[in-house]
């Protein structure tokens, strides 16, 4: 896990998300900065969701604008999905 401000997220999460953040350039990924301000638009939501499938499948009910609002909200959704995966026999 990588410590970024107050959120510890997996390196693959940041790598996957950063690939769609055209306006972020070399800056650190602030967990509470609006992702749309970093260049993530609704066009990119599906790309991020699909690219994350290498590690986790976000359920349909979590694919919402509020999920893609910040890195923190997206990571929270990823964690929920990972927990669900672990609970599934």
């Amino acid at each position, binding site marked *: 896990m990588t410590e970024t401000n107050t959120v510890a997220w997996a390196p693959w999460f940041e790598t996957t998300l950063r690939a769609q953040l055209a306006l972020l350039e070399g800056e650190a990924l602030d967990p509470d900065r609006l992702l749309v*301000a970093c*260049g993530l*638009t609704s*066009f990119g939501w*599906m790309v991020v969701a699909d690219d994350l499938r290498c590690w986790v499948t976000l359920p349909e009910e979590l694919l919402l*604008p509020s999920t893609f609002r910040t890195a923190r909200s997206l990571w929270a959704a990823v964690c929920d999905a990972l927990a669900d995966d672990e609970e599934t026999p």
Partner: protein
Amino acid sequence: MRITDLYVTGVGAHVPDRVSTPDAVARGYYDAGRAARDGIDAVAVATDLSAPEMAALAGQEAVAMAGGIDAADVRTVFHTYVDYSGARFWDAAPYVALHTVGASARGYDIRQSCNGSLAAIELASHLVPRVGGSVLVTSGERFDTDGVNRWQADPQSVFGDGAGAVVLSGRGGFAKVLSAASAADNRLEGESRGGRFHPNMAAHLDFEALREDYLREQVPLREHWFAMEQVLRGALKEALADADSTIDDIAYLVPINPTYPMLLGMLEHLIPLPEARTTWDIGRITGHVGGADHLIGLHHLVTTGKAGPGDKILFAGGGTGFTGTYVIIEMTGEAPR
């Protein structure tokens, strides 16, 4: 649809004074963070004229440019807009028709939200070859009704006021309409109403909240995006094929005017053209003028001389419904000055 006998003979635009982004931030209208990311330099804001009045001014310019055409020859006016147009239980097209081409032209309001102008051009392409004469297409927008905060209502665009117009004729002009293609998926109509109806017309407009409700309760994101992509890619493929063109043949793209990140997304995911070949240079100083974006963009390309003979121009539109329309024209001469 391949189009053989439809020409552009006149264009017009009316863009009111602009409010700069720094000014809007300083006055507290526009969030500074949004301003930094949206890439919009200024937004056109009407202070006196209504949307139909601005459309009439744009229409008068287009008819004047069409010059050799007798106003009586323009038998039909298609007028389009997104929001309230200054009176209830009233249609705006007859007003625009009266103040552009006279009392006997038929005026029809065409409501297809931001896709309205392109839908109207497609309708004109069916009408003109059959009944002759010319068609005036106008669009006029003003986004300051109760509950609409032009600066903050939609994270994907900032709304501007203004109007555009185009005269289409079967008897030649300075540009030829090569093709028009539309595709629709009406299962997506609920997006802009949040999947439910709202009894109060003055309700605060918040597109992000409406999208959240719609995607949660009506059509899941994956299904929504796949359907919208099918519509947009299908219509684009058809428009290019019917114009005997590839995307590389397109000199200019006239899209709706979203924020800069949205424009980049559109270019990356849907229409692979460089930003320099779009009308972003005008879009970033008008804001998203609803259905008038396409007509103001065309006016900009034509009157600045950016587009010249041989240039193919692709118009890309999408409106609530969801309907996507693409129109391709080719400049065949210089526009009258």
